[in-house]
């Protein structure tokens, strides 16, 4: 718990301020006071590289709350973890928390 708090504090300090963009999707689940900030999925940087149908609807349904994205699922190679595995895109881990949780 302390480690998570420390990491959250580091994340809050280290994360540069980012402007909200149209298409940012916030995943508020399982987050609360004292925990990591919610994950934000930025559509803009993904659609620079992929058309909509690269991910929709095979990997993600186009409906808020329809995709049970969890860190466990990501680390098991599902959802974001299909690409965010350190090969195609940056891996999820304790060095990259604040790239999504911001």
């Amino acid at each position: 718990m302390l480690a998570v708090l420390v990491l959250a504090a580091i994340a809050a300090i280290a994360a540069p301020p980012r402007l909200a963009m149209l298409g940012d999707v916030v995943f508020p689940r399982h987050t609360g006071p004292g925990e990591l900030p919610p994950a934000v999925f930025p559509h803009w940087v993904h659609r620079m590289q992929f058309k909509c149908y690269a991910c929709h609807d095979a990997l993600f349904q186009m409906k808020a709350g329809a995709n049970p994205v969890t860190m466990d699922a990501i680390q098991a190679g599902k959802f974001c973890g299909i690409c965010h595995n350190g090969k195609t895109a940056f891996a999820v881990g304790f060095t990259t928390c604040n790239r999504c949780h911001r």
Partner: protein
Amino acid sequence: MRPAFITIVVPMLLSGFAVTSGCGQATRHSAVTLFFEDVPPPGKESPSKAVVRQPRRPPPAQAAAPPPPPPVAETTKPLPEPEKPAVSRDWPQLLSQLPRDAAGGVDWVRALEDKRIEPKAGLDAAAPNQPVLPLDVELIPKNQPLFKAIFSHKAHTEWLGCANCHPGIFQMRRGADPITMAKIFAGEYCGRCHGKVAFAPATGCPRCHTALKGAP
């Protein structure tokens, strides 16, 4: 100084002169080999070569003969350009360079048209693009022809596949979907994307209602 010069140098010069000039050839040879190496034996002295001044480079042998063709394939062929991504990978910087619409948002359709971005069709780099459908659908509200909206299938199928919208959001039959602006603002039909990941209906009127182009 003077006595040293007379007692050492002068006898050396005299004896040297006597050795080289005063004896017969065989004696001179044996005496000279005492001091110098590689002295040719008497009678075999090679005549000294005449120094001939020559140009530094020999003149061209045959002016008429064409020079051999340079090895074109090896040297003059430009090296292949290093593999360079077609678009920048500095995403925030690229974002700042993308075309904008009247409301200041990114005009993704134009960015794709102008090839400022080259989004891939799938996670697999070899995934083929889905077909682009050049079909405009006119949606004319009752008694309000000025507010005719034109839905461009082309702009949408550059990004989306048919199954992304049909039949889940829109039925594939004219007039089957009672689309209204109120429903769009409430997040139905076009509002499933527009206002969320695509330009907002509130600020993009003339992009669908083309007759409103130029309106304030």
